[in-house]
């Protein structure tokens, strides 16, 4: 019951659609630094956790402790958005779903998809359910990372795992000719979903950049919690 309520309150339900996440291959959340890419990605991961799926959160910036803190905070924000919830119940649910989350912190310099491949292979070897989603946070899209993205694409296909990326854009950069930030513009074919976050009047606006018929829809989020501003879509 609580799970269902939480999923209904999730900003992801409105902005991307929960079913939509399960079918996506590559997704990206774009914004300039400090707007809330990681916190938005955590909400995406939480929706999968609430569906009893496994997720892997790979970060090239945050330590393992920091990743865990971000999830704790994301979950608390989601629970608080409902109103009163029995804290024991909320804690029990968190204890259950938290077991399905693996946070991996890599040094940017030594980040190597082989390690992820080895890890994912072990699920098949042990006949365990494969993680449904992988978050990759901290990859530098200003660099030429074609090879890394190709390898990740092959992981996505080989292991049927959705991958969502944090993509940092820059305030002073002009948009590309298709209206996307340049980091996405050159790689747009790779990504089937993209959401752009930007501050607007003390709120965060989530603009759907790429998602079939939903493209160009706008939503307003509370900057402190990344929850939807009531009645403001």
């Amino acid at each position: 019951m609580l799970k269902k309520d939480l999923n209904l309150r999730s900003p992801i339900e409105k902005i991307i659609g929960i079913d939509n996440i399960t079918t996506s291959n590559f997704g990206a959340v774009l914004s300039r630094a400090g707007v809330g890419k990681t916190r938005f990605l955590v909400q995406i991961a939480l929706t999968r956790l609430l569906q009893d799926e496994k997720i892997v959160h790979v970060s090239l910036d945050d330590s393992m402790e920091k990743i865990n803190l971000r999830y704790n905070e994301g979950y608390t924000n989601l629970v608080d958005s409902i109103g009163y919830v029995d804290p024991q119940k909320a804690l029990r649910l968190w204890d259950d779903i938290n077991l399905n989350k693996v946070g991996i912190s890599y040094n940017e310099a030594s980040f190597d998809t082989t390690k992820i491949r080895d890890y994912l292979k072990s699920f098949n070897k042990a006949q365990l359910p494969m993680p449904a989603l992988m978050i990759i946070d901290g990859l530098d899209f200003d660099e030429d990372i074609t090879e890394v993205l190709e390898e990740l694409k092959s992981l996505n296909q080989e292991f049927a795992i959705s991958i969502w990326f944090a993509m940092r854009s820059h305030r002073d950069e002009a948009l590309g000719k298709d209206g996307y930030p340049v980091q996405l513009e050159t790689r747009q074919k790779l990504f089937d979903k993209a959401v752009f976050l930007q501050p607007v009047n003390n709120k965060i606006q989530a603009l759907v950049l790429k998602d079939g018929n939903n493209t160009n829809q706008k939503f307003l989020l509370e900057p402190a919690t990344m929850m939807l501003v009531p009645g403001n879509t």
Partner: protein
Amino acid sequence: MIKDLKRVRNIGISAHIDSGKTTLTERVLFYTDRIHKINEVRGKDGTGAVMDSMDLERERGITIASAATYCEWKNHNINIIDTPGHVDFTVEVERSLRVLDGVVLILCSVSGVQSQSITVDQQMKRYEVPCIAFVNKCDRSGANPAKVARQLKDKLGHNSVLMQLPIGLEDRHEGVIDLVAMKACYFEGDHGERVAVKDIPENMRDQAQEARDEMIDAASLFSEELTDAILEESDISDVMIKKAIRTGVLARHITPVFLGSAYKNKAVQPLLDAVIDYLPSPLDINNEAIDLDNNEESVVLESNFDKPTVALAFKLEDGQYGQLTYLRVYQGSITKGSTLINSRDGKKIKAGRLIRMHASQMEDVEEIPAGHIGAMFGIDCASGDTFVSPSINYSMLAMHVMDPVISLSIVPKDNKAQINMSKALNRFTKEDPTFKTYVDHETGDTIIQGMGELHLEVYVERMKREYQAEVTTGKPRVAYRETITQKALFNYTHKKQTGGAGQFGRVAGAMEPCEEEFEFVNKITGGRIPTQYIPACEKGFQACMAKGPKLEFPVTGIRVTIDDGAYHAVDSSEMAFQAAARGAFLEAYGKARPVIKEPIMKVVIETPNEFQGSCMGLINQRRGIIQGSQEEGVMSVIESQVPLSEMFGFSTILRSATQGKAQFTMEFSSYKQVPQSIAEDIIKQKQEEKKA
């Protein structure tokens, strides 16, 4: 022994395995003139370090038992307990921390704060032991003491502050800059025994000044005098800084960080100075006991030699002259021939030969006064016993001891081995409260229980070496538990009429899962079961908890509520109600969906980055749950929870998967329900054992 307790320090040296604890202790003993030659751990000279007194320790390069030793430095007595670094032996660490006043936490300058350091830190917190940190191995490639000091803050929540700066790192590590005296210290001579104090190198002056300002800023929180001196921009004396830091350390609000390389004989002497300057004397610590004659009220012990004696036995060893008992005296003093009472069993003992230890060498003493650590021959007691003067009946507070999670059957090879094995087991169970033994009445096997595979392995090895008891071991077994998962009602009548006095008792109520081991709730009203039979009901239910009806594993987490019943004026008795409760338990248990629970271990693997993926795979294949993984320099740390039953032989598997480059630690975390498929296997196995 020094009677001015301000000049006494009882310290421990704690750290992660292989951080260099034993090497550091060896250097300390060398510089304080207790030994005249330095031996290395697993040394090339084949001797092994002095502190590793057991052959086995020397062979494996790990310190298993806490060897106690003392030394003198600058007119102070320092009693040192060298503690084991492996998690399987944490009871040793816990026992040491119980009797120590301060700890030197050793950290590796390359690996930083490792999993075992976290465990040791938690134990220090539990016993509120003040500590200083020593970042060792600054000569190693990849050494980064500043990073380690930061990790102390981030990972352990210490308010760490650098007291020194390294002069060169890795193979260029020459010495340290003392930020209090603002001098450079170099260590000259074959073994670094001469400390040469010189001016700070020109190129490091600014950096040193900046670090000193930071240190003084942190220290000023603990001294108004220092704060005033900063604000008034007046002279800041060394004494002022040391006093402030000491206050912070005693309150556990600051952790001064020292640096060096014990192996390369760098900066051990300044660390000894720091032990004296910053760690507490017995007078600074508040020790309490409970008064058994006065409703177990807390009593503060005074380090006063004239008061009645209170001493704690914290370690036992079997030597050529009989049992050697290590003691910490908290109040009064133990003199040769004095009479003491063991407050656990009330037995009177006469103190015989008293000694103080230097690893395997003994020095006879006439007296062990309050505040000191020493050892006594010829008394029979268990570890954790309190000895007091006959005029009082105090007990030191119990030590935190965990239940064993693994067991192993052992069979002696012949009759002689059987006798020796009994002697060994008798000794080991007295020495180590987490090591237990019993005879399985069904199989007739002797079972030993402990905290991990290595823990039991070491005892089996010690049986062979120290007691010549050759034994064969069975497969390690996991300590499973049973519990219920849903509420079930019972209404059971025990009725027997077989001539003579009959038996009658009826109990009704419910059984449900709960957090506690066992809870009994009495909701009987109107005297349906007379009050005098209620304890018998509880006893009857509790008796069933020892052996679960499902698979005969101990049962935990059950709340029994009785709310109805009946009795007979003549035929009811305590025995009848106990039997009724047993019947009721069996009746409800099957309906309450019983399940098996297994011990889950917290497993932390430290591996070179290139093996991170495969190590995570190994955890996955063992029904493990990975909680996270973190790259730290060239190494990755993987934290996970894995069922103990899947961890047998893991060290071999990990070695072969990582070319022997990874290591892991394991400690008990919690009990969790066994998945259905595994439960079926356990049931099958149990049935086969029964048939056999």
